[in-house]
Structures are given as C-alpha cells and as structure tokens.
C-alpha cells in the first residue's frame, strides 16, 4: 500500500513539472506564435478562455478547474462544459486545480455561481480550442473548415471521412490566429452529449479509497504542526502566557503569540497563542496546560439570552422601510382581522467536517500554501499583505475541501499558517480543532423577524409587514455597520414574491459582537423560515389550503418589477432581464412538489406534510417534508420531496445530490444553535452543537428537476432555505405546536 501523503506530494510536484514542461514545449514549436490557448501565460487582470484549456502534443487535454471542490463536483462539471464544445474524449482529459490567480477571473466559490457565471465562457473556451484544431486540420487537408468537425478527440473531414487526432494538430493549431467571436458556433442544445448528462465525479475513486487529499492531509518534508488557543472574546488579546512551561513540554518546538487584530475583523487571524510541535497531538496536549491572561474587551457584554430579547424588541418596533407598495398602515386600519407572529433564529456555525487547515512554507521572498479554501485569490492577497510580499510571490495551492459551506471563504487560517511558517523558518501546518471551528468562526448571524398580515372580510391578505433585524456580515468589514445590509435583505426579504396590495418590508438595527460571515444560503435561511412559516400560519388562520394560499399570494404570472414598489433589487449580481423573478416558475415548483407528494390527499392518508418554497440564487425550489412523531414526541422524516427549477442543468446527478444534501443542511440549520455568554461561545463540539445525523434526515428524498432551457441558476444553496420551514410546518401539522423559534427540539409533544 503506498502511503497517501507521498502520493499527494507527487501529485503536486507532477502538476508543476507538467506546467513547466509545457512551457518548454511551446518554445520548440515551429514558427512559434503561441496562441494563448496553448499556454497558461496570460497575466494580470486579463481573462481569456484559454487559461482553462491546454492541449498537448500527446493529445492530452488539460482542463483547469478554477473553482474549489467542496462536494458540489465542480471538478467534473467544469470539464463537462469544455469537453462538450471541444469534442474531447474523457479518457484523454486531465483536470488540474488552479492556484489562486486573477488571470482566472473570479475564483470565489460561493454564491452558487460557479456554473452560472462560467457557463458561456467555458463553452467559448472549448469552442475556441475546437475551432483552432479544425482550422489546423483544414489547412492540412486543404479543405473547408466548415467540413471539419470535432468528435471523439479527433477532427473529422465529413465529406471524405478522413480523421486526425487532436495531438497531431497541436503544432499547427498553435500557430493560427484566435478566431473572431462570431466564428464560434456553439453546439446547439439538441446535440449536447456531455452537458446535461450524469457524468460520474472524477474524484470518486480517490474519495472511496482514502486517497483524496484535503487541507488537513497535506504533509511536507520537515513540517511541524500548530494548534492555536485563540482569545475567548473577539478582539481580546493575550496579556501574559506561561511560555516557559509550555516550551518544556514533550515535542513542543515553540510558543508564539500572534498579533491581536483590531476591528474590522475582515480576514485577519484572531491572534492568540500558537503552540508549534512535532505532531498535532503534542501541540494539542501542550495547549491544555496553557495559562493565558486575556485582556478585557467590550465584546464580553455579549449574552445570547438578553440579545435575543433586544432583537425581538427591535423587530416589533417600526423599522427602516426598504420596499413598499400601497399603504400598510391604511390596510391595518381597515383590516377585518390581523395576524402577527415573530420568529427567531440563533447563530449557527458552518461546521464543515474538515475543520479549517493550512500548510505553509515561507522564504524571504516567497510563500507557498496548501489549503482547503473557497477563496484562493483572497487568500493570496491576505497572505501577501501579512508577509509584506508581492502577491505574485505567493502561491495558494487549493486542495479538496472537506466541506466549505462559507467557512472556508474566509482565509484567516491561511494567514495563521503563513505567519507561523515565517517565524519557524520551516513548513507549518495549522490544524483547527472542532472546538476552534465552533468557537472562533465567522458565524451565521442571529436574527429576529416580526410579520403582520391584514385580512379583509373574505379572508384575503390585504397587507403584509415584515421587519427583519440581525447583525450584518458587513460588520465584519466595517465596524460602523449596525443594520442588515442591502445585499443581505436581497436574500429573501426584498424579493418577497407576493402580489399583496399593501406591502411593507423593513430592517432594524443590531450590533455584532462576534465575527459574522456567510453560511450556505446566507440570509435566505432565516428569511425563508419566517415567511414560509407565516404563510402556513395564515393558511390555518384563514382555513385555506397552504398550496392554494401560496399560489394566491404569489398572484398572476409575471416578472416582478421592483421599481413599482420603490425598491432596488440586486438579483445575485445578475440582470433581471436574463434572470427575472418569474412568479410562474415559482408556482410551477410548488405545484410540482405538491403533485409528487400527493399533497391534496395528505389528510385522507393520515400523513403530516410541511410545504415551503423559495427563490434564491436565481433558482426556484419547493420542498415538502413528511414527518412521523412517536409517542415520546421524537420526530423522524420518512420522506422529503424537492422540486428544483435551476434553468439549464449541467449534471443532473450532481444537482440531485445537492438537493438531497441541501435539504439535510437546512434540517441542521433548524436544530442547531451557537450561543454566547459573556462574549464567549458556549458550544464546543458535536455533543452540544447539534447537526443532523441519519435519524433526523429523510430516509428517501424524491428530487424533481424541472426541464428548462433558461440560463443556469445556482444549485448548491437553493434547496436549503425551504427545509427548516417545511420541517416546522410538518411538525405543526403533526402536533399542533407552532415552532417560531429555532432550534427545533428533537422531541415535539402534541399540544
């Protein structure tokens, strides 16, 4: 059995050797006018499709995946798009993971945008390469390029049936000018053979053999291991440390106090005391004997119990209006009846199975890091700044991520490794323990929301007021940020899709006392929880069927015009013209999921179903969760249903997996909580931070992917937001208990 580490090191070495070998190969080409397509040579801010594809004279096609792999199988779906247009044979395709570099364009693997933001440019990259190969063959055959087609790693002259392999064309193709954009004919959808097919993950063999290498798994020669005791309160610092005691402990190489940051937190390490030792265990053991006096800091006022009350009080006061139409106050005055409810959701931790880790080697004029990071370019920037190096001298090698969920988009841990490697003058791996991950993270924010609906005599909703209050992610970057940002409110509040005559959406002030950060689906999680729970409350208040009520509230088929209600809507950074808020698509996923789950017959069959639907990341998702509750109140989920309209889908098998996993992540969002006392996080590991285990998750998930020719939407996040309200609504159906505050207990007794 070869050991996996030297295998991984060889892989890294081979990677760079291949790159240099290729550059060398280029200089040997005859009459070399190397088109960018064949060399990874573009620099600076320019982006050409060519950085994604290179073809070797051996015929090997190297496809660069510039996005991080964290379970969404992007290392398979990016190549799928290029293979389609290039006409490549998978047997000769090799995927290379990009380091962090601006030449690739945006590499932030977040916001469910790796496919939707790259679909066209990757197709063009593949088509450009195909055009040059076709042109080279046409030159050789003195044929019309229109008669030369790519297929199965060859160019075929269709009139004569002559064929030539890609490898033989490389030398000539490299001398040809890049085609004008209008010469690139992308393959029509009806001819797709790769896009839309359930191609198996290219990493599955490594993942099922124990050979896959994650950030925690990187091993370099002569490396040492560090664990860090970080300040219990954000921005407090170590005033005194029993350094001599710790240095005398077995295996300890050094004890290093890291600089304490000042606000804003940004991606700076939190400071604290690093213990560097010969192995992880020795560093960890020594940390248990640390005696540190931490400085006082104002963040120690943070207590979740009192903070919850403050947030709810703010949510129930008039807020700052961010979108309105009609007059809610008028609707309230004229109301036949009024329904009010408030919802609360605690902090959460992303808690990827792989806690953060980074391994660095730093010399006087360069740094190399191997790490599992969602944002390799940000990592490069912050490491360069921390070491006072030119970013071009910093290489961020991206390993597989053992889950990301937003935690690994903040590269604070990468800077820690770089600082310690510089101090130690040898490779250092920083290992975050689970306790570090849960107590010193960038937390999903805590939120309170108050909703009011007004009704006329016919029980129609005439008015809708929704105030959303939470400490903002912006506070991590701007200490003066004291209210939800526009960007966060665009995630499920401002885009409330209801055709209600009098609609008023608000925000209220809240101050952050811990680092707040993105977590899968971000603000959509708590906004969908409140709105979709409240819709179910309205259904019961009015005696209407929830499906029918949802369709009624959403109203006629239309593209929502936000200007009509005095609002601007960010739409995930994409234009409303290409990605409208399309109420017909939202209603379609609701109707689809209801049909699949046999919603209409649920009472007859004695089934307890909960329904929720939400558009996020330009994709429409509807979820039904079925619960069973035993006599003790313990609930389980025999089945869940998802209908997802994500527009054009590159790999339906991966999309299905994201639907299954997205719902389960959403169930975790419903049962977990992170709380603070005196500024310190109370939860420390999986015994007191609950995440969904097999018994809390659906035995079966039935996924329906809507067949669509619309441009691709997001996939990784949209299935998550409807899960918590679907679960809460199902538990209400089963028990009569309305769960307005998260976490939902694992046992809910009938009321």
């Amino acid at each position, binding site marked *: *059995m070869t*050991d*996996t*580490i*030297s295998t991984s090191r060889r892989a890294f070495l081979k990677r760079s050797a291949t790159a240099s070998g290729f550059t060398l190969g280029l200089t040997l080409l005859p009459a070399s006018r190397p088109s960018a397509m064949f060399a990874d040579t573009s620099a600076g801010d320019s982006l050409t499709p060519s950085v994604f594809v290179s073809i070797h004279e051996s015929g090997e096609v190297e496809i660069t995946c510039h996005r991080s*792999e*964290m*379970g969404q199988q992007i290392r398979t779906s990016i190549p799928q798009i290029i293979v389609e247009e290039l006409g490549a044979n998978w047997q000769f395709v090799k995927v290379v993971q990009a380091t962090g570099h601006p030449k690739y364009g945006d590499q932030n693997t977040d916001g469910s945008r790796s496919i939707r933001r790259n679909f066209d440019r990757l197709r063009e990259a593949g088509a450009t390469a195909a055009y040059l190969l076709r042109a080279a063959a046409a030159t050789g055959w003195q044929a019309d390029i229109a008669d030369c087609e790519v297929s199965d790693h060859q160019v075929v002259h269709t009139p004569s049936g002559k064929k030539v392999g890609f490898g033989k064309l490389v030398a000539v193709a490299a001398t040809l000018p890049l085609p004008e954009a209008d010469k690139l004919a992308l393959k029509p959808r009806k001819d797709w053979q790769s896009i839309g097919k359930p191609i*198996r*993950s290219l*990493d*599955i*063999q490594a*993942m*099922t*053999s*124990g050979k*896959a*290498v*994650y950030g*925690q*798994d990187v*091993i370099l020669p002569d490396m040492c291991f560090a664990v860090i005791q970080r300040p219990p309160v954000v921005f407090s610092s170590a005033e005194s440390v029993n350094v001599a005691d710790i240095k005398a402990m*077995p295996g300890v190489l050094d004890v290093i106090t890291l600089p304490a940051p000042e606000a804003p937190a940004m991606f700076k390490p939190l400071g604290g005391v690093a213990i560097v030792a010969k*192995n*992880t*265990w*020795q560093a*960890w*053991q020594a940390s248990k004997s640390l005696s540190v006096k931490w400085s006082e800091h104002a963040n120690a006022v943070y207590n979740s119990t009192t903070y919850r009350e403050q947030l709810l009080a703010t949510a129930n006061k008039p807020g700052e209006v961010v979108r309105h139409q009609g007059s809610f106050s008028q609707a309230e005055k004229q109301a036949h009846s009024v329904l009010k409810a408030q919802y609360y959701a605690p902090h959460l931790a992303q808690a*990827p*199975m*792989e*806690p953060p880790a980074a391994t660095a080697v730093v010399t006087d004029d360069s740094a190399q890091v191997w790490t599992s990071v969602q944002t390799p370019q940000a990592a490069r920037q912050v490491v360069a700044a921390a070491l006072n190096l030119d970013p071009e001298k910093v290489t961020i090698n991206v390993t*597989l991520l*053992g*889950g*990301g969920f937003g935690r690994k988009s903040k590269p604070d841990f990468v800077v820690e490794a770089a600082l310690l490697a510089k101090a130690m003058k040898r490779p250092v791996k920083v*290992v975050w323990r*689970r306790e570090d991950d849960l107590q010193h993270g960038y937390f999903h924010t805590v939120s309170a929301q108050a909703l009011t609906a007004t009704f006329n005599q016919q029980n129609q909703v005439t008015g809708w007021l929704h105030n959303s209050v939470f400490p903002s992610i912006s506070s991590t970057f701007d200490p003066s940020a004291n209210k939800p940002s526009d960007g966060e409110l665009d995630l499920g509040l401002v885009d409330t899709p209801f055709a209600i005559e009098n609609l008023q959406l608000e925000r209220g002030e809240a101050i952050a006392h811990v680092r707040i950060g993105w977590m899968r689906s971000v603000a959509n999680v708590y906004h969908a929880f409140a709105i979709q729970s409240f819709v179910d409350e309205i259904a019961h208040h009015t005696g209407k069927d929830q499906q029918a009520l949802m369709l009624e509230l959403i109203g006629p088929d239309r593209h929502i015009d936000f200007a009509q209600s005095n609002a601007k809507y960010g739409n995930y950074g994409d234009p409303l013209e290409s990605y409208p808020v399309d109420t017909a698509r939202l209603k379609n996923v609701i109707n689809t999921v209801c049909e699949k789950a046999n919603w209409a017959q649920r009472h007859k069959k004695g089934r307890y179903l909960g329904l929720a639907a939400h558009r996020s990341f330009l994709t429409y998702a509807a979820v039904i969760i079925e619960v069973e509750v035993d006599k003790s109140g313990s609930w389980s989920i025999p089945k869940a249903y998802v209908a997802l309209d994500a527009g054009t889908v590159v790999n339906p*098998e991966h999309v299905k*997996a994201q639907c*299954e*996993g*997205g*719902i*389960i*992540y959403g169930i*975790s969002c419903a049962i977990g909580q992170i709380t603070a006392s005196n500024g310190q996080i109370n939860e420390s*590991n*999986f*015994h007191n931070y609950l*995440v*969904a*285990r*097999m*018994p809390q*998750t*659906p*035995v079966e998930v039935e996924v329906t992917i809507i067949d669509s020719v619309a441009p691709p939407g997001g996939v990784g996040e949209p299935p998550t937001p409807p899960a918590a309200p679907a679960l809460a609504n199902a538990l209400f159906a089963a028990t009569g208990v309305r769960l307005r505050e998260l976490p939902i207990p694992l046992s809910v007794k009938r009321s």
Partner: protein
Amino acid sequence: MKVTINQKTFDYDGDPAMPLLWFIRDDLKMTGTKFSCGMALCGACTVHINGEPTRSCQLPMSAIQGKQVTTIEGLSKDASHPVQQAWREHNVPQCGYCQSGQMMQAAALLSKNADPSDEDIENYMSGNICRCGTYPRIRAAIKTAAGKV
C-alpha cells in the same frame, strides 16, 4: 511497543496516551483516516480494531497492542470492498471527507448483519456525521452492498 496496521508491523515508543489517529496520520502519514471532532462524536476517524469499528481519535496507543488495526487503506487492496463499490455505484460522496469513516462503519455493520433493516442501518450509522447530507445514499449503498461482505 509493536503495533499492527493493515497487516504491517510498526514500532512505537512515544506517549502511550496518544490517540491512534495521530500515529496513523502524523507518524505513518496515511491520511485516509480523517480528523474532524477529536471526541469520538462524528465517526470520521473510524478504523477497525480486530474488526470492531472504533474511533481512533479517542483510542490511546496503549490500547492497540497485540491487536489488528485496519484503516480505509487496508479495507481492500484496490478499493474493491463491496462497500466501496456500492459507494461508487450510488455516487455517495459529495466532499468525501467523512466517507472513509462511513465506509469503515458500514463495512463493520455488514460483516455482522448481512441484511440490515432501515432501523438497523440508522442505529449503526447514527454516530457518523456527514455535513454534505449524503445519508439517503449511504442507506441505499449499504443495502446494495448487503450480503456481499
């Protein structure tokens, strides 16, 4: 002391209290066995000790003397154990980080129970956390591998 891992014998003269996980990962540099919680709460570090699934993050080196340790690297020579095959057939892994532990736990289940019910699977696997949410596929893959171990 002598320790036997995947049928190879190694000498160990370090702290007998050190958990096996760190011997496997840091000393032997075999990283298929994963670190995730360090408290035997998540199952990512599961290995077999004389065939019994065990959390290596809480198992001191002193406890493995004279015993047979099997890691994911030793479950089969070429990732061909029925559980590994079923994991691929069902496309179980997403990020993959917990899957070594899941497969070790599942292989132990199937070595004792050739035809586990949904409840058997749930009971046996509930100590293994997957944050990507691959549980429905794990259930299905275990059923596919059942009877083949």
